[in-house]
């Protein structure tokens, strides 16, 4: 990773329109580059880590903490007030909000990310898909919404099976079905249409190719905004729960080199076509048959960017800042090399035994393992309350290894040694996922968690372990310890005796 003070820092002061681990992550790079950092915070997080670590902090108000972090006027005003010359949006919150990018721009500040038009283009599913298709990026074949069932059936049959059929107007699984043969098609279409009419007052139905056992593959790209673009290889994010990623890795497991090249090339093609500026991620679904389809493009830094950093040795935030300052891409595609394998685990406050429902609590104890091959990205403090105010993701544990098996082993060991107590987390669950034979085999798809539900459930601890836990717990209770140590002699020596 590139480190050390920049002789000529591109900015003097950057405001981070975010919080938590990503704010701390950005502050770290700013500090290395000799750029002053400004944190923003709602009153409830006045003592949070990102506030303490930043050189300056500005309080923003809002009915809820989240609403404060979504308040464009206040944030841009704060940046101007403190004399920042750029804003880094992190991920989430306003990072993919075109209005925000525009407001930053109009305030005479630099938005560290793509321009507002690109954000808007990629932010709209339909336009993004169309744009991708236009530039030869494969999109899942689909039948455009129609009420004409005969036409629908004709087009659908042309695509082939299996097909996913649903109401064009809405979601929620109403009228949704998977059709695996032509015989089923007509009935399913009719059913979908009537359901669509019934629930949404809009009888149009839609169909697209259904990818079985889909894998989530994404490509990290950087564009210079002038048609130049490179990729920093792919990441695999197939292990998901509740449609959200929990384990990401780079590179993808068992991906044939030709297919990897093809996927990465298409991502670069898309970025170049869009005159993409700054960091972006092109997401695909990859079928078992090797066909891949464009899903969407994220016009920001990804949560899982550290796995890319660990295999490429690059600092993606630094690249973002340099490009935002108008500098050229500092290297060519051929200069980018990948080394080893990296795995990221998202540590979330949730209960895997109860359908991953978010948990709240207080961080009572935090002890993370440290090693050159580990990153523990967090903004946690002992005593910090974990509330439902923000996303349940508490931290990210990233492990690098010479190969996938090595990285997996290191990640499992690190999860084993990671003590984050006071709120229920998925730490142990993640270790079980990494330890599952199907994970080791690279047999991944987005239904992994559901498929292996039984095997991934926590086993009852054996009696010996349970007794140790109980002893460790008892020794932690002050009065039990007093009971052991507070008995004077000779009673302590005589022990249990009755005459």
């Amino acid at each position, binding site marked *: 990773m590139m480190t050390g003070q920049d002789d000529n820092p591109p900015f003097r002061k950057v405001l981070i329109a975010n919080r938590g681990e990503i704010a701390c992550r950005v502050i770290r790079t700013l500090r290395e580059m000799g750029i002053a950092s400004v944190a923003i915070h709602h009153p409830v997080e006045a003592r949070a880590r990102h506030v303490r670590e930043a050189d300056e902090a500005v309080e923003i108000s809002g009915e809820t903490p989240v609403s404060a972090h979504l308040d464009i006027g206040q944030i841009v005003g704060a940046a101007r007030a403190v004399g920042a010359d750029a804003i880094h949006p992190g991920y989430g919150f306003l990072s993919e909000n075109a209005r925000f990018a525009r407001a930053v721009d109009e305030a005479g500040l630099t938005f560290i990310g793509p321009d507002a038009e690109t954000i808007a283009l990629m932010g709209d599913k339909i336009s993004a898909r169309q744009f991708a298709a236009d530039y030869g990026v494969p999109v899942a074949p689909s039948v455009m919404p129609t009420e004409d069932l005969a036409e629908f059936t004709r087009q659908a049959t042309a695509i082939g099976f299996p097909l996913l059929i649903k109401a064009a107007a809405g979601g929620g699984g109403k009228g949704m079905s998977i059709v695996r043969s032509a015989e089923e098609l007509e009935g399913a279409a009719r059913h979908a249409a009537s359901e669509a009419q019934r629930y949404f007052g809009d009888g149009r139905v839609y169909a697209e190719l259904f990818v079985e056992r889909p894998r989530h593959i994404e490509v990290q790209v950087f564009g210079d905004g002038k048609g130049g673009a490179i990729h920093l290889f792919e990441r695999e994010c197939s292990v998901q729960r509740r449609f959200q990623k929990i384990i990401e890795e780079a590179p993808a497991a068992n991906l044939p080199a030709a297919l990897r090249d093809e996927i990465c090339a298409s991502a670069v093609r898309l970025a170049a076509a869009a005159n993409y500026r700054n960091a972006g991620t092109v997401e695909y679904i990859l079928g078992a048959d090797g066909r891949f389809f464009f899903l969407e493009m994220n016009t920001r830094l990804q949560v899982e960017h550290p796995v890319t950093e660990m295999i490429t040795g690059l600092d993606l935030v630094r690249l973002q800042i340099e490009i935002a300052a108008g500098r050229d891409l500092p290297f060519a595609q051929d200069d980018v090399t990948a080394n080893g394998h990296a795995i990221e685990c998202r540590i979330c406050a949730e209960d895997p035994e109860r359908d991953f429902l978010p948990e709240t609590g207080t961080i009572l104890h935090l002890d993370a393992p440290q090693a050159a091959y580990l990153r523990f990205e967090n903004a946690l403090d002992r005593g910090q309350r974990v509330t439902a105010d923000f996303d349940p993701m508490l931290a990210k544990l990233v492990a690098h290894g010479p190969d996938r098996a090595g990285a997996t082993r290191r990640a499992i060991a690190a999860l084993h040694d990671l003590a984050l107590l006071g709120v229920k987390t998925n730490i142990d669950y993640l270790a079980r996922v990494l330890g599952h034979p199907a994970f080791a085999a690279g047999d991944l798809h987005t239904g992994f968690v559901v498929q292996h539900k039984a095997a991934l459930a926590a086993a009852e601890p054996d009696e010996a372990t349970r007794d140790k836990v109980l002893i460790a717990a008892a020794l932690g209770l002050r009065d039990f310890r007093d009971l052991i140590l507070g008995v*004077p002699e*000779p009673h302590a*020596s005589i022990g249990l*005796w009755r005459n």
Partner: protein
Amino acid sequence: MSRLQSSINTASADFRRNEAHNRRLVAEFRAKQEAARHSRPQRDLDRLARQQKMPQRKRIEMLLDPGTPFLELSSLAANMAYGGESPSASSIVGIGMVSGREVMIRADDPTVKGGAWYPLTVKKIVRALDIAMENRLPVVHLCDSAGGFLQLQSELFPDRYMGGRIFRNQSLLSKMGVKQLALVFGHCTAGGAYIPGLSDYSVIVRGTGAVFLGGPPLVKAATGEDVTVEELGGAEMHTSVSGTCDYPADSEEHAIEIGRDIVSQWDRLPRWEAQRETPEEPFYDPAEIYGIVPDDIKKAFDMREIIARIVDGSRFHEYKPNYGTTLVCGFANIWGFKVGILANNGVLFNDSSIKGAHFIELCNQNNTPLVFLQNITGYMVGREYERRGITKDGAKMIMAQSCSRVPKFTVMCNGSFGAGNYGMCGRAFDGRFLFSWPNHQIGVMGGDQAANTLAEVKANQMKRNGGAVDQSEIDRLWEETRKAYQEQLSAYHSTSELWDDGIIDPLDTRNALGVAISASLNAPLGPPGYGVFRF
């Protein structure tokens, strides 16, 4: 300090015979103890269960710090009184550890006549509180008593050491700063009500606990008022209205938890720092005591063999080993505590008496607690010894012992007859604790001697009256006297009357002394000095 050299042959016929004999005695003792502790009419046990009340012993176990000793005192009190209907004199008394503090625990026994106090119950409670005062031991009362057993009121109410003494002692304990906690589990009526009333802290269990001078039937009889137990003296009323009790508890377990918490708030008063070493188990097996103590009280044995099986590492520093050899004196450690031991190896002569008095003075000078191991037939009698001043020399020993400022502990190992009992710190001499072995006998003289003496007197009387000596009458008198003596001499009679603090298995001697010595350190030493020694 060098290790005693034992000369016991554990393979000898004597040893085996003694062992069989003493094991039988201990088994007999254990059986009596077990019955006193647990044998109750089924209906009483059923009632307890119906009231969802735990047996007192279970409450005590919950109250104590786990893995610590509990020295129960006088477990066979009243075992020969009231036709045996008041086991352990209807109360449990003992010393144990609660929240890291040594405390006296005293519990009523609701399974016997609603926890009513018999005369010996009162004596046992008074003794428990005396121990608490002498040793500054905080007291935890587990209250569940209907008050005095009315049928025997004349034996438990009016006199100086009867009922009122309990409350006098409670008051003085409080004045001394020795804490008392009452946990009220059942109905505390009449006298029973004053125990929580005079305790510094009190906890009362909702539903089952109640405190009143007169229960609902008595109130009805006296004033015609109809009132429920709860209204009259329940937990809610006493903790929120009358203030007679401090803490309401939602269950017995809760009451015990509150009680433990209260005790943990008590200051730990400074203990008198006795000289102490790291404890060491005796080198010789204590179980060999069974083979050492003879099967006949008239047979002599070397008390050093007993000492070797009680003291740390069997080490003993003997004082004046060649002088006054019928009284073995010396220093040793018990559970680490330095003690001065006086043990009888025969009748007390002039030299052994003087040696004993001198050794007691040394221990007082050196702040060393005294342990008396009694096996004494008395001071030597006869013209020669009277001329040498045996009475005067015995008096020196009694004077030195009586005026001792260090705590004293007595173990009745075999026999205790005549004035030897006085010199060796018998019950009258305010030793902190006095324990008896099951084989022990005590009296002015032995049964044979008493029978002989009385037969002799009777024969002389017959002769004086001019009649012939009726040998069959003499024989009858002899046998009667011997039998009556034998019964009164037994350890069970002693302990029934609370002449000791309990019979103990000889193997428990070391632990009992350890707990007792430890308890004694809570009280500061008394003032030094003696009366006039007759030289």
